[in-house]
Each structure stands twice: as C-alpha cells, then as structure tokens.
C-alpha cells in the first residue's frame, strides 16, 4: 500500500473526483480480505500491493481465485526479503504464479492504466470470473513520473459497463460462500478454475481488441507483443519495463545489420504456450530475461518457455539470463552482450548478469 497508487486514489476520493469507498486497512492480508468481502457483496473491488505485502496476501490470493471473485490488483513488482530491499524485480509476483490469478505485465505507466481498465472487463466476464494482477515494475513505474492519458469517465463507462456479479451476498437470495469442500468435490472446483483459464485467453484478446477500437491504443494482441520479430533470428524475451531498454538495443543492432527482435510477454497467466511457439519458432536463438529465480531451478519464464517447446521438432536454442534482481540496473550493454552471446553460443547457457 506504500506506492503512489493508494495515495493518488485517496486524493481522487477526498477531492470528490472518484465515487468509491476506500477502506484503510491495517495490513495487506486484510486489504485483500476486505476486497474479497466487498467483491462477494457485489461491488467492483480493487487493491494494490507490492513485495512483502503480496507475500503476506499469499493465503488470500488462493481464496479469492478459488471463490471466483473478479478482484483486480496492481502489484508494484519489488524484491522479497532477505536481505530486505525495496527495489524492483519480479520475485514477488512470480512466487504467486500458481495462485489462480491472471497475470499481466506492463512496460509503461500508460500501459498500466490501460491494462487496469481492461483487467476489470476480463475478470468480470462471466465465462472467466478470475482475479487479475496487473504487474508493474516497482520504482521504474511505481515511483517515477511520466505523463499518462487518463481516459474520460464516459468513454471508460461505455467500454466497461457496471459490474454484474454472478452471485452476491444478498439477503433476498441467500447463498453460502466458501463452504468446506470434501475430497469428493474439491478437485472438481479446481478443474473449473483451470477451465476458466483456458477460456480467459480468448477473452483477453477480445478485450484488447475492443480496447484498441475504443481508445486507439494496443499492446500486441493483449497476450504477447512483437518488436522487429518477423525476420528476427535472435530474439529477446522479457516482461515489463526491461522491454523498453531492449527496444533501444534492437534499434542499434538492426542498424548494424543484425537480425534481432523481441517478444514481450504481456500475459504470463494464462501461459500462452502456442502464441510463444508461433512467435519464436523461426528464430535461431532466444534470450529469456528473468527478473526472478526459482531457487534450485532456473528462471521461471525460461523454464516455462522451454517446456512450451518440448513437443516441437524444430526449436530455437533457448538461453537463460537472470538479471536485475533487487533493483540492479539492467543496462543497454547487458542486453547487447546477451544478444552477442546468443549469436555465438551453439547450446543453451544460463547467465547471471551480476
């Protein structure tokens, strides 16, 4: 809660510019619990967190998704302690990737605003009913100022109509929310969640395309975004603001005649394996940049992209780069170095860009 997000929302509310109820909770665990309660009562519910706060919410993340409550939450991605550190990486949200939330990563403040608006529409779609995390890089986006266009309320209202819950806590139509599920029913609930994820990919794309029609802005197809990818032999893969840095490097190397490009992974959950294979299958080599690590394994994005290719007869050499943990700068040089490495290396490497 210590980002500019709740501070600015408090300004909106206290200046009468936003008609909402704000609950100033005593902990992030209670923040998500209160959002759970308000969503179940039938109102659109939102919260924001970061790092240790997200870790504290872990228990409730699973409950919100299991109860199919379409809460939207901004996560200002920051490192997890110890050592305690307040800077950017993706360890917090990556550690929650199995919590049943759609995860969308953004590159700019504008994309954060736009994705937040889209997220409500995705989450509240009756064929989805899953919570959404909008993951924006801590500090790089959450504590740095850049101009954004905040769309007119009337245009947003047209794009995003009033929230219609499937069920709500209604004394005229009483329902039991959150009962105990014995082994004979539990797994069926989990299967329904998984099925909803399968449906959500199509909804995310449709919402992204509708958004483009209403607001004239797009971020790929809402799932992945390509940059100089068509004829690229060497491809950078990343999430969030690091993609902005990669664009500059790609422009430079292209001028030098190198066939480099980028696939920005916007949607990490549902994991778009088909879209990834389609985007990368023509490449010779891929550099996956993870700003998180699965200890005892490799970078989480790297591992999942690897497994997306397991059934493919032709696949690029996929390399793993662990970079930018706890706010360590990922500079133009790092990405250029990575490109030069993957142009040379014949088999997969894992590199920590220390």
């Amino acid at each position, binding site marked *: 809660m210590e980002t500019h997000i709740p501070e600015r929302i408090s300004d909106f509310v206290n200046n009468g510019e936003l008609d909402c109820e704000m609950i100033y909770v005593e902990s992030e665990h209670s923040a998500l619990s209160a959002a759970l309660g308000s969503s179940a009562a039938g109102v659109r519910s939102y919260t924001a967190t970061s790092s240790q706060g997200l870790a504290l919410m872990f228990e*409730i993340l699973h409950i919100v998704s299991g109860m199919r409550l379409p809460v939207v939450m901004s996560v200002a991605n920051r490192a997890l302690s110890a050592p305690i550190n307040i800077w950017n990486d993706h360890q917090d949200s990556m550690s929650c990737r199995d919590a049943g939330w759609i995860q969308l990563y953004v590159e700019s403040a504008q994309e954060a605003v736009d994705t937040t608006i889209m997220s409500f529409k995705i989450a509240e779609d009756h064929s989805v009913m899953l919570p959404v995390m909008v993951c924006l890089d801590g500090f790089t986006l959450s504590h740095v100022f850049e101009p954004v266009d905040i769309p007119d309320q009337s245009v947003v209202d047209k794009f995003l109509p009033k929230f219609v819950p499937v069920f709500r806590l209604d004394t005229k139509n009483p329902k039991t929310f959150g*009962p*105990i599920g014995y082994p004979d029913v539990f797994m069926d609930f989990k299967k329904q969640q998984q099925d909803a994820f399968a449906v959500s990919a199509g909804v995310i794309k449709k919402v992204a395309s509708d958004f483009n029609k209403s607001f004239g802005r797009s971020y790929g197809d809402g799932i992945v975004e390509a940059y100089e990818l068509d004829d690229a032999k060497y491809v950078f893969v990343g999430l969030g603001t690091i993609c902005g840095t990669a664009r500059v490097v790609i422009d430079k190397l292209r001028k030098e005649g190198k066939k480099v490009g980028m696939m920005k992974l916007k949607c990490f959950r549902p994991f778009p394996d088909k879209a990834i294979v389609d985007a990368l299958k023509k490449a010779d080599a891929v550099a996956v940049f993870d700003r998180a690590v699965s200890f005892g394994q490799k970078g989480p994005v790297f591992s999942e992209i690897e497994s997306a290719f397991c059934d493919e007869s032709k696949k690029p050499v996929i390399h793993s780069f662990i970079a930018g943990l706890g706010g360590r700068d990922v500079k133009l040089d790092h990405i250029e170095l990575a490109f030069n490495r993957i142009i040379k290396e014949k088999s997969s490497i894992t590199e920590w860009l220390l």
Partner: protein
Amino acid sequence: MINALPERELFAPGHTACAGCAAPMVARTILKVGGPDTIVCNATGCMEVFTTPYPRTSWEVPWIHSAFENAAAVASGVDRALKKLGTRDNTNLVVLGGDGGTFDIGFGALSGALERGHKFTYVCYDNEAYMNTGIQRSGATPKYANTTTTPAGKKIHGKSEFTKQLPFIVAAHGAYVATANIAFLQDFANKLKKSFAFNGPSYIQVFAPCPTGWYHPTDQTVEIAKLAFKTNVFPLYEIENGVLTLNRKPPQQVPVEDYLLKQGRFKHLTKEEIAEIQQHVNSDWERLVKLEESKLKIF
C-alpha cells in the same frame, strides 16, 4: 421457546456438530434475533466446518467464509460494499469466530476493523481452544487446562497462563462489549439486539462448552455453562459507552471446584492449583464488582 424471539428458524438442522456442542445454539440464537436480513462472515473453525459440508448448508441467510484470521476484514469489505449499494441500513452484519480465530490469529484484523468503526456484531463463540484441529491451546484457554499442546504432564500441569482479557482490550477500542453464555439465551438475545442497534462495532463473547475438547458428558453442556456463571468463572457483563454493568450476579457463589471437576480437562488438578484458580476468579470478580460500583468510564 425463548421469550419474544421469533419461532422462525433460519439455522437449519442436519449439521455435523458433535453431540452436545454449544456452538449451534449460538448460531441459532443469532439468526433468531437477526432475522432474514442478516449477513454472516465466518472464520475458519468448527462452526464453519460443521455447517457447510458442500453442497449442504445450515445457513438460510447469506454467509461467507474465507480464512481463519480475516473474518473481521472480510466484514469490513461487506460493510462498505453494502453502503455503496445503498442497502447498509437494514442489514445486521455478524462476524462469527472461535476463540482461536479471535484472541490469537485474527486479533490484528479484529483490532483494525474495530478501530475503523465498522458497524458489525462480532460474536466469539468461546470454547477455550482450537477445537476444529484437535484441541490445541489458545489465548482463551484457562490456566491448567489439559489440551493437546498443553498436556497435563508430570512436570508441567497443563496450560501455564491465565486467559487473555480480550473483552477489555476490545472495549478499549470504543466498541459495545458484552459477555454471554449459552445457558442464558435470553440474556444473549438481549445483547445481540443491543449490538444490532448500536451504531458502531460490537463484540459479544459467548461461553460455549465443547464436550469433545473439555471431556465432559454430552448432556452436561448447559449444566457446565450454568456452573461457569454460578462460580464466577465466566461473569456476565456489558461495557457500554465505556461503563461496566454486571447483568446478573449469582445469588451465592459456588466453589470453582464444582465446575472444574465436572470436566476431564481439569481432572489432574491438585488442591493447590484449584485454590490458585479460586483466588484468580475471586480477584477478577472483585475487580468487576468494584468497576461496576464506581460507574467509572473505563475507556
């Protein structure tokens, strides 16, 4: 049936509580007083487990459970959502938690919700341990009680600490506070009514024996609850606008031994330990009587 309470049952039978469990009496009374315009936010614990084995439910009002320690926070969200929807005024919002979910792990969420002043009635059904997970000690477990984590061993004789004085801690937040007992349902009902009318947070702690965890015969639940009152082990009081009132005083105080020795969890007690408990009960009682007489605004 209890005086002036509706016949209509909104708490359905067929739940899976143990025989002789007091907790269903708590739920049933809440719904009789609250009526159909009640929403219940339940913490994880026996009450949640025995009333909602999917797809069955005992709750004929909207009911929500999500975790062990967050029921007051969930209720905070429900409270504000109803306000936003414009339907807040008529609905009784009840939070229901066991003593573990209230005294221990849910204490932070409870304190936060009290401080924010949400209008709800928090009912703690106090069976003095974590019963759902197998009788582990809580902050509400009385001194020397034998639980699975404070066993009556040869060296250490059950729990080492006296009970946390939660009602006073809650009262310090400015809430309406009351204690109640399943042996005195009319008194509990009166306090529920008062809490529903109160424009702010309320907390009612209800003494609710658990034959499974206290090791007493299932037909002795109400008898033991009565003895808790007669011995002053669990006095019935209210703290309203910061002032304490004893609602009912036993005509003659019964020795704590009569209460303790009816329960297996205290059967290992020595004479000295019983005397220590007696002394503790007496001094607590004297404090309550003095507070009442003083009419002091404690908070």
